[in-house]
């Protein structure tokens, strides 16, 4: 059986990579994706914790439920966020976040 | 219920024999499916032709039976053009993705309840590659990923028509996936499981015959609405007529695979037909009792067990007869041969009852699948294509709400039934 620890370390690494992507990439869509990556990393640790609990524990499944909620929220976020991105791209003719640094045009 | 993980570990802990067996199974299935695909095209062309009072392919081989082979060769030997300025990786990835996923979905479909009577190095040979508890979920997961093949293909080939086709089709698939999933929930509720075998067993027909199937649902509740939703959205999901907008020849030349030539094009082609088969199988399993025969298991109905041979024998004889008076010498040689084989099989089933009993389940399953395939072709032959807005309206405003309502009602009924 795989030790829970491994999953946690993996999720830590993935999260860090997500952060790195957030910092390094300039394309707003990619940045958005890196956010999703971080969410996924967190989900992983959620599930890892949940499965590390004994079956007798009443809260065993909570972790997985949280994951479901996270996914749902991520979906909503993607819908709205991408809408915003489309709008911004339309107005500023650029997807580079470094070029979009003014509150108004 | 011992879940996927234990399933997995157990399978992994199996010896090499198991691996070999599975490998062979996979190869076999691939071979069969690809052949069926090939002849499905032939079948389609024939049927459509006859619907339009044409003859259809009849040059290559008797009744054009070698047409598929000819097409295959053509695909293989044609020059493989890669348009300028395409994103190579994605351009190559797309067809692979499409084909792989559609083939992979076959892995979880069971073709019969009991294993072959003879073991293979001590491993019993089930009529499925794998049968996880969440077969249905896996199927949907794979279908969900199926979008990418089309979308990426459209985008990668760096051209207008494909892009539009890709956008269209991905939008269409995403939209209809919801309806597809929702319409199945009713069945899942009644079976109380995601396992395909469970679902089939739940619609047991031994007592009431086909009344036990979910489509009639005498055991719990009729899923006819669910079936309609499912089948329509399945057609849309597979980009077939009347929902074949991604490859609307008249508008987009050939849609997302305009820029694809030779074998890559063939991959898309195969993927499409394979998914047709998968969907038909799914329809059968979910709503039409899978491998259950439409007749009760009462002794009175035992004669129905001879239906396979009863269908095979006359067909074989007819093929022989037809072959004898075929115009080309080649045909006069080949066709009777095939007829003889078919007749032989039919006879063999009569002679060996065990084999006959064993063949029942696959027979019914494949029979139903064949019917649905025929339905596909039929639809293609008759229905015109929808307009894009109509398509979206049907998906979002008709199918989705209806299937949701169906879910609610079914849930209510199931609740009432389960209440002591």
């Amino acid at each position, binding site marked *: 059986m795989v030790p829970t620890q491994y999953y946690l370390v993996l999720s830590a690494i993935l999260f860090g990579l997500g952060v790195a992507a957030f*910092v390094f990439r300039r394309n707003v869509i990619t940045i958005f994706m890196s956010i999703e990556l971080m969410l996924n990393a967190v989900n992983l640790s959620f599930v890892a914790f949940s499965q590390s609990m004994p079956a007798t524990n009443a809260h065993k499944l909570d972790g997985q439920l949280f994951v479901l909620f996270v996914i749902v929220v991520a979906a909503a976020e993607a819908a709205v966020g991408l809408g915003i991105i489309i709008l911004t791209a339309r107005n500023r003719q650029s997807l580079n976040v470094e070029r979009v*640094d003014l509150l108004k045009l | 219920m011992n879940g996927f993980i234990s399933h997995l570990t157990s399978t992994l802990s199996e010896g090499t024999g198991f691996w070999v067996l599975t490998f062979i199974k996979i190869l076999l299935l691939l071979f069969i499916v690809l052949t069926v695909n090939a002849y499905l095209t032939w079948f389609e062309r024939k049927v459509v032709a006859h619907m339009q009072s044409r003859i259809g392919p009849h040059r290559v081989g008797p009744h054009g039976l070698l047409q598929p082979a000819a097409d295959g060769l053509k695909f293989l030997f044609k020059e493989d053009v890669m348009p300028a300025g395409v994103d190579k990786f994605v351009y190559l990835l797309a067809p692979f993705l499409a084909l792989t996923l559609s083939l992979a979905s076959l892995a979880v479909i069971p073709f019969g309840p009991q294993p072959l009577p003879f073991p293979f190095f001590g491993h019993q040979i089930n009529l499925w590659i794998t049968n996880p508890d969440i077969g249905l979920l896996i199927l949907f997961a794979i279908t969900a990923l199926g979008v990418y093949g089309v979308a990426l293909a459209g985008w990668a080939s760096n051209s207008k028509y494909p892009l539009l086709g890709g956008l269209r089709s991905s939008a269409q698939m995403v939209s209809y996936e919801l309806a597809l999933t929702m319409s199945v929930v009713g069945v899942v509720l009644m079976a109380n499981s995601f396992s395909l075998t469970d679902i089939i067993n739940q619609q047991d027909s031994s007592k009431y015959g086909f009344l036990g199937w979910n489509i009639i649902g005498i055991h719990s509740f009729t899923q006819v609405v669910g079936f309609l939703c499912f089948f329509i959205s399945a057609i849309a999901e597979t980009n077939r007529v009347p929902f074949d907008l991604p490859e609307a020849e008249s508008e987009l030349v050939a849609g997302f695979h305009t820029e694809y030539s030779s074998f890559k094009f063939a991959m898309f082609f195969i993927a499409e037909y394979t998914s047709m088969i998968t969907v038909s199988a799914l329809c059968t399993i979910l709503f039409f009792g899978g491998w259950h025969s439409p007749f009760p298991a009462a002794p009175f109905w035992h004669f129905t067990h001879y239906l396979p041979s009863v269908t095979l024998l006359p067909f074989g004889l007819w093929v022989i007869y037809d072959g004898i008076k075929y115009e080309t010498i080649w045909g006069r040689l080949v066709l009777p041969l095939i007829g003889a084989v078919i007749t032989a099989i039919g006879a063999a089933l009569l002679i060996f009852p065990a084999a006959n009993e064993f063949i029942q389940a696959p027979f019914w399953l494949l029979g139903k699948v064949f019917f649905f395939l025929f339905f596909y072709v039929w639809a293609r032959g008759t229905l015109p294509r929808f307009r894009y807005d109509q398509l979206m309206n049907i998906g979002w405003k008709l199918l989705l709400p209806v299937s949701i309502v169906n879910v609610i009602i079914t849930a209510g009924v199931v609740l009432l039934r389960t209440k002591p």
Partner: protein
Amino acid sequence: MPNQPILEHLWIIPLLPLLGGAINGLFGTKWPNKIVNTVALSATGLSFLAAVEAVREFITYVAPTGQIFRKEFFDWIFTGASAGNFRIGFDLQMDQLTVVMVLVVTGVGFLIHIYATGYMAHEGGYYRFFSYLNLFMFFMLILVLAANYVLLFVGWEGVGLASYLLIGFYFLKKSASDAGKKAFIVNRIGDFGFMLGMFLLFRTFHTLDFSQLFHQVATQDWPHEGWGVFGTFTVAGLLLFTGACGKSAQLPLYVWLPDAMEGPTPVSALIHAATMVTAGVYVVARSHILFQHSETALVVVAIVGCATAFFAATIGLVQTDIKKVLAYSTVSQLGYMFLACGVGAFSAGIFHLMTHAFFKALLFLAAGSVIHAMGGEQDMLRMGGLRKSIKYTFATMFIATLAIAGIPPLAGFFSKDSILLSAYSIPGGHPLYFVGLLTALLTALYMFRLVFLTFWGKPRYDEHHVHVHESPWSMLGPLVVLAVLSVVGGWLAAPALWGGKDYFTEFLAPVFGSGEAAGAAAAIDEAAAHSLEIALAIVAVLTAALGIAVAYWLYLRQPKKPAELAKSLQPVYRTLYNKYWVDELYAATVVRPLVWISDHVLWKIVDVEAIDGTVNGIAHGATAIGDRVRHTQSGNTRSYAAWVVVGALVVIVIVFWPTLRPMIGMVTK
């Protein structure tokens, strides 16, 4: 109890004026005077009727039981058990003392309201005036009905506020607004003492509720604090008395009252003669038990009262402003009341309070009527001979003058007489008695001086410009009523003279029972006491007569004389005329240093340097920091992201520190 509808809802009595005041204050701006005074009068009138009914119920149902009526309406301050269940409730009580006060306040107040409708008819801010006046009524009633010191203090401060507002009613007039401030500030000094007193009491008895507190004092035997012993009671008493001095304008805090005459005359009548200024007396009487426990306190009260009485009377002699004279006479009469309290004759004090309320209110109103007739003229030297032109005013005012001068059988005679008697009859009270007597003489003198100057002699005003006219009945009515009261007001105590018993004292006995005992303890046996009483009465009357005679001689016979006297006794006259330079003294000793400190220290250093410096410094600091930090807000998402990462790092380090420290150790090794 169904048969005590009002008593059960005692809060109605104060609430009505409050409502009136609120309504007028909030909506009165646009209303015509009719509506305004309808509201105000109905409020006070109803409150008066309610008071009467309440008193009836009290006397019929409660008084016979020897109890006092007390009801807790709601918790105002209640700290749970955690803070020792300290409770200050909105509790009202009614006992004999309250009865007197409530009747005086509502009754006189109502009359004065009526009067004011006439007097203020042509003034601006009509609605404002009545709203203030009703507000005053509310607070005054709270003051007299309160069942604990804190609630009493609420009323106490409230009437202070109302008086401030009303003194400064003509706020455009600088003198008026100054007078208002002066009154307020001087009162603060007294109130400070009052608060300290309350704190001391609470510290000692852990309650400020009258019944509980006095019950403790009465039941547990506290050491009786003799002369010069400064125990709890002495200190507390003296502190409370300080407050009383402030409110009731006793030495040395009387200075605000004369200036308070800047307010409209009804105000002077109601607040600065009849009711508010007597609050101090009320408080002393209310807490008489405390005072009885301390000789020192009593003596101080008596001496201060006595001194004030004489002092103010002397000043009153030479004032020419009619209202100023009355003001000083008020001060001196209040002195009388305190004298009474000081000698332990609380009921006599309260008695004088009541009668004084009648005739002094009358005097003021009449004076107001005179001023009204003279078209705003207040200087007596510019009046004279008004006797014929304004008969009613003259008649009523004359009655009041007789009353205050102490001519039998008018109210003032009895009250003053009983005071002097009790002053005489306590051991070592003779000096007090004689001073009091002298004061009585002076009182008669200056009051008749006032009357003679105003109503007799030739008119000293320009008849062509000033059209003397009698006031409307809305003003005369109250005068008449009050005149009647000032005549009969004292008869309750009359029988005492011919051996009967003093009904008023008897009525108040449940409250002051023990107090009177102290007073009467000194008295010799009945017969001697009675003869003494007669003798003293005669003396008093004679003194008054003497005073009148002197006034007659000086101001009617030889009108030149006063001027000559003034010239011959120049220093004395100037001293008196300038009120002993007390104001100047205060200005020099208190006001100017205070102003200097506020100006040079508090303003120039503390405020400008310290406070403004701090505030501006903070502002500048913020701007400076902002200038630096602003550059991080580049709008560049990536740098934001980087910053977020920095923050996350910090958080992680903090959270996982215990785990990470050993690793860091490993790394460094």
